């Protein structure tokens, strides 16, 4: 069974001149128990989508269901079954850790004790500070408290809107480890992120840009769909190298990618052709290797075909 079905959902804001099409009729499904990533930059429509699915915003067109319930008609029932962690910290700053958690348990007609097992691993890390006010917590602690509060009523579907934005690489890794262990407890998780490298940690992902879905697949599937030959190239003067690469007839696209430049080749061209070309242009021993695409390569390619 599908935990979430999104069927031609659209949403727009503003009028005439200032009209913004936040979601342009998108489709996808999330299976029960799946860890599903919505990957895309700011302004792609991720938050609008999450707010529609958590019944906080009405769509302008299309339909969607969560746990078999309609997001418009059955909004009350859905609210009991989903957990939502918005992108902006929205707990009560002047309540303590413990008071926030008890508050959320109470409004969902349950107790902290009843569902403690579910949050134990996460909450136990901040429990020693349970009398501290939420407003006084560090970013990482706030995040753990927000996640505990979103889970305390044992939701069947959990929505996490950009939980790792602005978070450093170490804390991001830890957060994803928490999500993996929640998934093992059978909760369906939808998580949005602008970080492309987090896609590989999901079961499946939807790549989203400007209100449109570019691809829905497993991370492996997205990468396998990248059909062009791809090479990574490095030399001493990277700026000059990029200019020279962009002039090569076999190049479809070339862009910086960390330590290397990634070069998407037209069909029929290989790493050898790139080496030869560079040697003809006075590069002595350019470092050229054929590589597998990264999710970010796929995203860039999909963005450019969409244009």
């Amino acid at each position, binding site marked *: 069974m599908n935990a979430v079905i999104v069927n031609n959902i659209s949403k727009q804001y503003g009028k005439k001149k*200032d009209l*913004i099409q936040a979601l342009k009729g998108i489709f996808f499904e999330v299976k029960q128990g799946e860890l599903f990533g919505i990957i*895309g*930059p*700011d*302004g*792609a429509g991720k938050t609008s989508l999450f707010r529609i699915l958590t019944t906080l915003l009405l769509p302008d067109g299309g339909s969607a269901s969560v746990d078999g319930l309609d997001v418009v008609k059955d909004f009350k029932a859905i609210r009991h079954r989903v957990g939502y962690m918005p992108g902006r910290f929205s707990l009560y700053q002047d309540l303590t850790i413990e008071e926030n958690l008890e508050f959320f348990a109470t409004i969902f007609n349950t107790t902290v004790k009843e569902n403690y097992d579910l949050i134990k691993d996460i909450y136990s890390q901040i429990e020693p500070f349970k009398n501290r006010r939420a407003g006084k*917590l*560090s*970013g*990482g*602690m706030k995040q753990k408290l927000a996640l505990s509060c979103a889970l305390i009523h044992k939701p069947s579907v959990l929505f996490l809107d*950009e939980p790792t*934005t*602005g*978070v*450093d*690489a*170490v*804390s991001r*890794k830890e957060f994803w480890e928490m999500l993996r262990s929640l998934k093992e407890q059978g909760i369906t998780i939808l998580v949005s992120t*602008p970080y*492309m490298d987090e896609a590989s940690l999901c079961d499946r992902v939807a790549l989203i*840009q*400007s209100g449109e879905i570019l691809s829905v697949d497993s991370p492996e599937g997205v990468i396998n769909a990248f059909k062009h030959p791809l090479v990574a190239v490095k030399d001493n003067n990277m*700026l000059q190298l990029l200019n020279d690469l962009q002039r090569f007839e076999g190049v479809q696209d070339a*862009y*910086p*990618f*960390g*330590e290397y430049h990634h070069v998407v080749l037209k069909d029929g061209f290989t790493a050898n052709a790139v080496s030869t070309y560079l040697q003809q242009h006075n590069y002595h021993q350019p470092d050229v290797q054929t590589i597998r695409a990264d999710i*970010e390569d796929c*995203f*860039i390619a999909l*963005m*450019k075909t969409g244009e």
Partner: protein
Amino acid sequence: MTNTAIHAEGLTKRFGDFTAVDAISFEVKKGEIFGFLGANGAGKTTAMRMLCGLSIPTAGKASVAGFDVYKQTEQIKRSIGYMSQKFSLYEDLTVRENIRFYAGIYGKSDAFIKEKTAFLLKELHLEAEANKLVRSLPLGWKQKLAFSVAIFHEPEIVFLDEPTGGVDPVTRREFWNMIYKAAERGITIFVTTHYMDEAEYCNRVSIMVDGRIDALDTPTQLKKTFEVRSMDEVFLKLARRAKRSGD
């Protein structure tokens, strides 16, 4: 004129008994792209605030564009540009008004503003959007505009605090292209980021852990020193030593 844009020696900031920045020493050369990395809570923002003349150090020495961070904070503010992911432009002003506002703050003449605004709008392909509210622009355009505004008065140094957070991968690269161009013109770039691939685009990178600078070198040398293959691994190796967390 010296060749040094920023010089810090034992720079320290304490809040009560908490040492946010713990005697950091480093130098940034003119025209250099300097990556200032660290986990949340490592002390980056506090250090940056001292360098921008917004917070007086507890101890140590530092000069920015040749000015002293204790006594010449106003001169520092005039010599630098600043943009962050969180705040950069006024959403309820138009593109043109934002440019005019910032240029006016830095005391630029009307003639200078007029001529350079036209040039800038053309370069950013924003001519059609000049009279639109900044609020209506896509994030990537906003960030590119914010950077251009931050260097509009031709500062010696520009401080960029996570300028590309949440920006799409294509625009993120266009943004770095603009950084390179500014650096070529001699503007010193001081930049923080959570994207480790961007650390590779810097000439040198420092990594802060618990208020100290625990590593400072070129990306290539850092990878060699820590015997790893990527900057991501360098960062993880260092940041895992951290005892404190949060922002």
